[in-house]
């Protein structure tokens, strides 16, 4: 039970200073893989979410999907993917992307949906086409909500990438899993601490981005939401078909 001793052992270990098991390399691996999964999720979910939000069609499907995604166990999806597709990063990328996509989809749909209809009418009235209205009016207005969705997805991806070390993925989860397997407590705790620091750092980055992204017209509202860290996140009087939409996913 000696925290400082463990952390000293962890950081003093020459293997953690340089080479493939070094802290820097593991952090970069973790970040690169998480960014890849997040990027893929955005590529798929963002256009779809924007279209759904703008047309108002299929919102029900989106919220239902988000509810199902929340109920799925990440460890189960990751182990299943590796059994079916073989060991390798590509096999893990699929469940990670699938888990990151719903929050992005919901945020895009709800964000665009939440744009003031008068503003939208005005944009149409001055001659903007539908795509122009979506991209120049709705997307900037929805930016804070969108970023909040991305933040949720990033929490999910960083946590799941840690768990995925169990099936052979690199990154900081390696320390945790390898340390547990060999009963090497300094390694496990050092890795866990680094994961926590990374997650908090990414959260702070997103909090900053959300504050910066608020368009001038909505700034007071967005600032309030940014300060509590919960943008457009009411838990409404609900019905079984639509679970609360923009709630955070599994950590």
């Amino acid at each position, binding site marked *: 039970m000696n925290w400082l001793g463990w952390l000293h052992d962890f950081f003093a270990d020459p293997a953690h200073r340089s080479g493939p098991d070094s802290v820097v390399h593991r952090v970069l691996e973790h970040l690169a893989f998480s960014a890849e999964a997040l990027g893929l999720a955005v590529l798929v979910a963002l256009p779809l979410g924007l279209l759904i939000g703008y047309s108002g069609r299929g919102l029900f499907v989106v919220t239902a999907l988000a509810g199902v995604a929340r109920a799925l166990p990440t460890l189960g999806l990751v182990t299943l993917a590796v059994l079916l597709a073989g060991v390798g990063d590509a096999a893990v990328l699929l469940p990670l992307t699938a888990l990151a996509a719903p929050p992005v989809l919901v945020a895009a749909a709800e964000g665009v949906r939440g744009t003031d209809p008068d503003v939208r009418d005005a944009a149409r009235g001055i001659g903007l086409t539908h795509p122009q209205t979506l991209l120049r009016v709705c997307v900037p207005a929805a930016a804070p909500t969108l970023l909040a969705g991305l933040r949720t997805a990033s929490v999910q991806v960083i946590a799941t990438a840690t768990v995925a070390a169990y099936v052979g993925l690199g990154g900081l989860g390696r320390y*945790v899993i390898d340390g547990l397997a060999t009963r090497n407590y300094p390694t496990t705790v050092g890795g866990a601490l680094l994961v926590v620091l990374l997650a908090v750092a990414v959260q702070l980055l997103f909090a900053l981005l959300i504050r910066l992204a608020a368009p001038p017209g909505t700034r007071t509202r967005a600032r309030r939401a940014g300060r509590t860290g919960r943008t457009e996140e009411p838990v409404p009087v609900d019905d079984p078909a639509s679970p609360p939409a923009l709630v955070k996913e599994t950590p």
Partner: protein
Amino acid sequence: MLDGEPLVRWRWLGDHFGYLADLTADHAVIALVPVLLALLLAVPLGLACARFPRMYQPLAAVFNVVYALPSLAVFVVLIPYTGLATRETVMVPLTCYALAVLLPTAVDGLRAVPEPVRQAATAMGYGPWRRLAAVELPASVPYLIGGLRVAAVSSISLAAVGALVGRGGLGYLFVDGFQRTFPTPILAGIALVALLALATDLLLVAARRVLAPWARGVAR
């Protein structure tokens, strides 16, 4: 890769019915007791926050950070205090995650009581405690149950990660299936976790219908 192994061996499921039931029960305890504990903590904390709004911002900020912490890392950090493969190692963090969801909903619920209703209760001679028990808490039930639904479903899917530190209820099926290159337990585990989440969610919706029948008409 699976060399000729079928995706699901139905016989295995039949042979291990009791085993699966035990794991599901264990999973329900590990995942849902923390949610109940969090509810017991969220109501008084929410009351304090509704009364002293200055308290709320820092608390909300702290729980926002807590919620972002990856579960596996938190489990691991707790091991020296709660022990490897004990329920507590998994249940303590799950309580914190559930509290992070429930505290804002409790505060929102208590703040949502319309001022005229509050004043009417006072005018009828209700003291602060009786008003709390008879007016404010019941009025916040729909909010609390909304929060409970999210917290319970997340908790159920998160508890499975506990298998990596030796105690994860149904999560054990994932570890077991992976080590033996045997997909049947993994699929059974995913299905049972999802079913448990669905059943809990339906139960909570039913509870809201009973406890707060007036909320039905307001539902979106």
